């Protein structure tokens, strides 16, 4: 089974702090994704990566950055956390090659910024 893990289930941070969210997948997937989930808005793509050291902006990249130094790990960074970044953050991965590959999700990190 594909396993995607996220470093924290719950985080509480203060405004202005630098926040790191880590995601690790164990299936040698090429593609990795970061989403945020908010009630009534569904999932919105923040950033994705299709290879080591490669990254692409999603639909809402402002205020975020990412890092992918190793294939299995994709980090989301909030450079200076703000209260409007309070949300559920979901990481996902998928294999490359065929375009119909399923995305597999981690359990999510619920972030509260005070």
């Amino acid at each position: 089974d594909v396993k995607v893990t996220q470093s924290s289930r719950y985080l509480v941070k203060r405004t202005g702090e630098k926040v790191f969210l880590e995601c690790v997948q164990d299936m040698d997937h090429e593609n990795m994704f970061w989403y945020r989930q908010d009630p009534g808005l569904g999932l919105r793509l923040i950033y994705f990566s299709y290879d080591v050291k490669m990254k692409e902006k999603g639909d809402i990249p402002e205020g975020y950055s990412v890092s992918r130094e190793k294939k299995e790990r994709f980090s989301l960074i909030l450079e200076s956390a703000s209260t409007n970044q309070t949300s559920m953050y979901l990481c996902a991965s998928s294999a490359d090659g065929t375009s119909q590959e399923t995305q597999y999700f981690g359990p999510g990190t619920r972030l509260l910024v005070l």
Partner: protein
Amino acid sequence: AQSVAQPEDQVNVAEGNPLTVKCTYSVSGNPYLFWYVQYPNRGLQFLLKYITGDNLVKGSYGFEAEFNKSQTSFHLKKPSALVSDSALYFCAVRDWGGNNRLAFGKGNQVVVIP
């Protein structure tokens, strides 16, 4: 741009009754369609997908979905709902913008009443 619409915010159904969760799509290429389920405080779990072939797709936990090209719909169905099916359901479509991106709907809360 590719998109999906889930017109109902919440679906209430009595246990044992048929369950339907609606999804319509808009794509400029071939419609690759997915359903995911999210249980409370969990990540998304893959249920099923339509790529090509039979219009009726069978998935996990007794769910199935019917692809209807003329109505641009991909409704999720289960013949007999269980209380444990109470969850948030997301429809998604392959975004032909590249790199296995998916465009998600806003989600449907399903409540199965004992």
